[in-house]
């Protein structure tokens, strides 16, 4: 067994014996059973693994746990509080912004980061911010609608 690494995930301190070079994605999914965060490609190109690190959207598949330090990690599992979906989650549900649903957690996390950073984002800014998140079902128009409605609701 290697040394334990402590991670702050969704407000709780979690431990893992994974080597420090292990990706945050692998630790979240396989060691901590937080499987809402998805694997899509392992090279930071599709955004399925997006989580927030100190409020900023990062690709957990290319983020080694050594780079997390004592930063606060937020995953899709941390968005819903007491059975209340977050504004972004609710918007995706209300707008039916999904087909197979696999990309949705990553989309929600990226959009959540945007909502916090730039709640008045223009369409162009939303598209720029979201462009690293792939939906292979190509439900982009509906997702854009959901994100815009979340930004509106968040103001």
């Amino acid at each position, binding site marked *: 067994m290697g040394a334990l690494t402590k991670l702050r995930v969704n407000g709780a301190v979690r431990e893992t014996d994974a*080597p420090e070079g292990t990706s945050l994605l692998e630790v979240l999914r*396989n060691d901590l059973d937080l499987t809402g965060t998805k694997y899509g490609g*392992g*090279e930071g190109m599709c955004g399925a693994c997006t989580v927030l690190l100190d409020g900023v959207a990062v690709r957990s598949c290319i983020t080694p746990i050594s780079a997390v330090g004592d930063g606060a990690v937020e995953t899709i599992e941390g968005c819903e509080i007491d059975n209340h979906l977050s504004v972004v989650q609710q918007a995706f*549900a209300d707008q039916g912004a999904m087909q*197979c649903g*696999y990309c949705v957690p990553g989309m929600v996390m990226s959009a959540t980061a945007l909502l916090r950073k730039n709640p008045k984002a223009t369409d162009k800014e939303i598209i720029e911010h979201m462009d690293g998140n792939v939906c*292979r079902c190509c439900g982009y128009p*509906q997702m854009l609608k959901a994100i815009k409605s979340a930004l509106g609701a968040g103001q």
Partner: protein
Amino acid sequence: MSLIEITRRQLLKALGGGFLVAVLPAWAIARLQRGQQAPQTVDAWLHISATGEVTVLTGKVEVGQNARTSVTQAVAEELRVAASSVKVVMGDTDLVPFDRGTFGSQTTPQMIPQIRRAAATMREALVDMAAERLSVARSSLVAADGVVTGCGGSLTYGELAAGAKITKAIPREVALTPVSDWKVMGTAVAKVGAYEMVNGAHKFASDMMVEGMLWAKVLRSPSIGAKIGTVDVSKAQAMVGVRVVRDGEFVAVAAPSLRLATAARDAITAEWVETSKVSTGDLPKLFAVPSTERVRYTCAYIAHAPLEPRAALAVWAGDKITVHTGTSRPFGVRTEVATALGIPEEKVRVIVPDTGSGYGGKHYGDAAVEAARISKAVGSPVKIVWTREEEFKFAYCRPGGVIDVDAKVEDGELQSWSHVNYNSGGAGLETPYRVAQKSERFQQFASPIRQGSYRALASTFNNFARESHMNALAREAKMDLLDFRLANLGDERMIAVLNACAEKFGWRTYSVEDGHGIGIACGTEKGSYVATAAEIAVKDNEIKVLRAVTAYECGKVLNPALLQLQIGGAVLQGLGGALWEAVEYKDGRCETSAFSSYRVPRYSDSPVLETVVLDRPDLPPAGAGETPIIAIAPAINGALFQAIGSQRNSLPLRLGLLP
């Protein structure tokens, strides 16, 4: 006792009693009505428990096309219950009746009508039971919201189901709810399961884990058909906790963590005997197609690239194996696993959780078979999730192909048409245009590159070649792209869709900037009709689609909101195949391994997207998940004439190359 009856009794026992009705295929009902022997085929089961829960058990699966939601709507409508009170069990081979698979847009035209019939039959039977129990005339009773009510009192479906004693098929012809009375079908019922998608709780096959599970990795060959010469697994074997499985060419490792399994696989050294010289650089050469005077179109092999890669969790226990995996053919995968393990199919249970898409790419059980073989060998539950690289290199592709077209036009009218498709497939081969003399042929080829099904199959390429050729013919005839098509069409449904598209787009009065172009194309496949018009801009050899209008007609619309998603998704997905996607091979080696070398559509690629749906309550619904993909590429191609003076003859459209 018939097979159905045995299954029915077992199922009732498993479900704890209640009222169970078999959903029979149309031909079986016809046999029953002729007084012939009860058939041995069941399409699905419908069940009401003593507490009133409604359950559908079907071999169809949910991969993002929303079959789960449309089945729910059909049952809710005919049984007169809320959609939220219907539970649909899908793709569990131990619980659901055999099903060939969820593909070819067949759920809507084949399964939905039969489920409706069965649900309506069930409803009428519940009314019968209530009439008997309440001792009133059945005509005085109404079934609504899960209760049968009349002047003599009321009984819930649960109360009725608890006493249900019907043990044989009900051959009575029942009336389906007419479209004009629909309250649930035809409405924008939200996707079933959406909540678990947005909060991350849904467990895809790739998310599943069980106690004592090992992660597995398979040693992959470097090129097509490569054979292992020598292999040294000693280093992997020496790693604590690692199990090595070797069975001929199949070499795999299993370990308690993914990182250890990956390290162990990487520690294996193998020498390969490579023989393949397959390259995708020259497709006519690859398919040994003779040179021709005709106009030649080509289409690259492309990947489905479902965002959820192939994954399986296999649990070997005693003499039986349970495999959780994402596939559109649970029973097909059951056969594959049984064959690979040399055990009877009854000893294999395949369970398909709602799957992270497929687009026709998950027909087989690659990961399921691998996980099952390893699980049986090591005696522990085993999980495999393919990496993106494995997806690109080892999953089957949409077939590449070559199409040669020759046509003759006089006074703006097609006189003859010849269309030969090499390798890509026969779907959508037939022209929808009026032409006296035509020959259309698909020539099969043993593709050296693994190929298979894909959303809309070959109709995307057949339609691309046909419609691109129509673009060229229109130009030669000095006719407008729309007028030339209309002048040669006879099918009223196709004409209506094309006109609706042109009107919404503003085709006749479109003002087109320099360097921009507009195109329009249409097509029909699997009983539905599509037309797409697009405006493009070309800059630095890059095509940007600015606006795309798609008109679509698939008979009666079952769910307008989800239909919009399917249309938009298909058009945008088609953009990828039209502009960028190609899986490349050189000397037998796949050179495509990641999203960084395989561009797929993103937010910024989305044009302004508009859709017009022509609802036809007078026509039966057709499956709508596929056909809207087939018109975008030739529409863009036609727009190239205006933008840069010439169109391209290949998919993807590559401007850097000569036309």
